[in-house]
């Protein structure tokens, strides 16, 4: 039923970045998208809207929670916050991602190892 998110780099990457960003501070959707863009030095092109299905999935899984509040620009926004379960999930994902990255790097530059 759910079609794979073709804009995603690989399954789970966007989630990982969102969780990592939220670990520093709670943010609302727009701020979150700008923050990811800024942090990646605009290297990654992410369709801003694709954030929202991902956020809903994470809400349902209980990795983040959301509450309506007022932004610094005095706008009614929904602010997302990392939960303990979300933090644990992030750790697992990051470590498995790093192992994968390490593996790929070794394959790409065998001389260095």
């Amino acid at each position, binding site marked *: *039923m*759910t079609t*794979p998110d073709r*804009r995603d780099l690989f399954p789970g990457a966007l989630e990982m970045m969102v969780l990592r960003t939220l670990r520093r501070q709670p943010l*609302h*959707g*727009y701020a979150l*998208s700008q923050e990811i863009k800024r942090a990646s030095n605009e290297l990654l092109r992410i*369709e*801003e*809207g*694709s954030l*929202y*299905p991902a*956020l*809903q*999935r994470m*809400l*349902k899984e209980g990795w983040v929670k*959301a509450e*309506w509040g007022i*932004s610094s*620009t005095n*706008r*009614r*926004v*929904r602010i997302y916050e990392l939960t303990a379960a979300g933090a644990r999930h992030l750790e697992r994902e990051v470590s498995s991602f790093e192992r994968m990255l390490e593996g790929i790097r070794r394959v790409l530059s065998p001389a260095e190892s």
Partner: protein
Amino acid sequence: MNWITQIFSRRRIYSDISEELQQHLEEKTEDLIRAGMSREDATAAAHREFGNMMSLRGRSREVWQWSAVEDFLSDLQYAGRQLRKSPAFTLAAVLTLALGIGANTAVFSVVSAVVLRPLPFPQPDRLVSVQSLNTRNTPIPDSLSYPNFFDFRANNHVFDHIVCYRDDNFTLTGLGQPVHLDDQIVSWDLFPLLGVQPAMGRGFLPEEEKPGTHVVILSHQLWQGQFSGDPSIIGRPVTMDGETYAVVGVAPAGFHFPVENQTVQLWTTLARDASVSIGHPLTVQRGAKVLNAIARLKQGVTLDHARAEMDAIAAALARQHPDENTNIARTHIQPELEWLLGDTSKALWILMGAVGLVLLIACGNIANLLLARTAEREREFAVRAAIGASRHRVIRQLLTESLLLALVGSITGVLLAMACMHLVLPFGGDSIPRVRQAGIDGRVLVFSIVLALFTSVLFSLAPALQLAKVELVSSLKEGTRSIARGHDRLRSALVIGQIALGLVLLSGAGMLTASFLYLQNRDPGFKPDHLLTFSLSLPEAPYSRTKQVDFYDRLFERLSRLPGVQSAAGGGPLPLSGSQMSVSFNIPERPSAPANRPHSDMAIVTPGYFRTLGIPLLHGRHFTQRDDAKSAQVVIVNKAFADKFFPGEDVIGRRIEPGATADGNGTKIREIVGVVGNAKQSAIGVDFEPIYYFPYKQLPWFIESLALRTSVSSLSLESAVRAEVTSLDKQVPISGIRTMEDVRSESIAQPRFLMLLLGSFAGIGLLLTVVGLYGVMTYSVMKRTREIGVRIAVGADRMKVLTLVLKQAMMLVGAGILIGLAGAPAGGQLLRNMLYGVAPGDPLLMAIACIVITATGGIATYLPARRAASTDPMQALRAE
């Protein structure tokens, strides 16, 4: 989040999402304007960066949707496409299911109408039947006599009402043609007991039981028919049996009492039995057991409580009236419906069980079809798994397909059942009470739907188990068929199970068939062919006993002169009409107290009776015209009577003193002047019952039936017979003209019905089993093509290959037969009470059943085996 709160909070979640997305776009637009864009450009850019708003909102919401229902609907669509893609498989499965579910639906609709449907009266479960329990030999329920009934009615505290009833008939005159009508003689409170209000007029009053009262209640049908719905019918006098009765009420349309009896058109009170011209009326004869009784339990009284009190009353009556009541010191009280159905409900449940086995066999076949199909679709399942479907999801898809199949099959089956029931039910005739009302109603439909659900789970169990075991994705990689490997054992197990069930069905059908053939072909002790029977009712008032005797003398004289008639006689109860009158007798040379006297069925006959019916005279002489009231009192007995009461003795000339009297002036000693052969009095039952025959002129109670031995087709004489009777008296109606062949055929209607149904179920079961075996063997041969090719290539001759395949099939058949043989005796035990002249589990019948299964199995295997034997080795090897 649990799914209930999810449904309620979903609306809020959706609006949150919409608002959030809108806020995002606005904030982005404002940012871009602040950076120097025009509002128009900024809005466009914001939308571009954001992506497809509609689809993103949809996907965000989707996360929260209750996926089970939506998944199911899409599964169902997919299943429909899959089934349409393989029409041959779908057709085979749907037809098999339709047979199985259709047969089950049909039988269940009969069970529902006959057994499960409550009696058509208010609070039907409070109605009970009341009988005496005769404990003289093996305890058997017995009818009541009027004095005992009156005592039961007066002394009990457990019934709101207790009502007696018995069969009777009237001749209705004064409305053109005389009409012969069946009525019931009842005690006054029948309608209050049943909780039924007459459609017009009133029920009977207590004082209308008094001798000399002539009141009657008409059935709605009789009122509409004979009386053309006369609105002023209440109080109108009608002439019945030459006497004037007043109509006091008309029963509601559709009212039948006794419940199973559609022919009863009138009800009158027991006043009719309270007055007779000669002798003692029935209402004072404590020994005359002629009554049925129905009662309604008081609120709060249990069946056990009622039994205890009625037993106490019966015991007290036995002490007061030892001569008549010693052997009936107990009562037999059971729910009215149970009494009404008797053995029928057991027979129907057996049919239900048998048809259930057919469904199991059908499920086996479909499971086998599905297994083969699952193997073929392995790649499809693997692809689905690869693109993210969980194993759970794939199995659910399979179950959805099964469910769809089962639903289509059950709809077809219900239609099939509706079509077939009209063809099958008439075979049951009147042998199954209440069966006329059988049809497809709400309860039956619910049953079929539940059955469809159940079967769909049942037949997809095997393929689902198989799918659950294998690694789906790996089968995609290897390109091999991993499902197929595990299949053979499962498919073989299914076929073995089918053969076992088939054998149980077949042996049951075999036993019922043998029993039916026994009943049909055994010597009934008389010659039923070319024998026409009918009844007359001589109204009692205008015909005194002497006049009746004269009337019959003249009638037999005339009838026997008709062309085509060899002889004419009267008497009864006729053979095959059951045990109706049982009378005790004393043997003067070894007298005994009244309660201990032997008793036997009796019949009253005219001189030509035995010759006309074809019952042989073994010793002594026939009755003659001279055996009348003035001459010596005589009696003729059958061989079973002589053997039972005078074993090893010569009975001619022996004397007995029967309790049956002509005029109520005391019993007479009678001499046995003849012994005749045993004629079957009841159609079923193995033993010949003792019976003794009285000459009509010495015991002129009535002539129950008339019989004509004819040299031409019996029924062709019907109009001639009517003409003769009418020429003697226009007011005497003829009823029940039938040939004795018909009587005989009807008397074994229920065994025939059972045999036909169980036989058809066994046939369907066998067919399905054989098709299943054929399928498995064909599949197995197909898969072993390469192996067989190699065998042939290295020199195996074709005969050997043929034997190889046949041997494999016979292993399956053998295993199935072994299991079936273990189960068949249990089935035989269930049938025990329905078998005559056949022992349950008769070895010869079992052997025949085994041979039939083996032979049909062999035929089913021959085709695939021949194909295997004709395998071209080169082609077989190249193909892989």
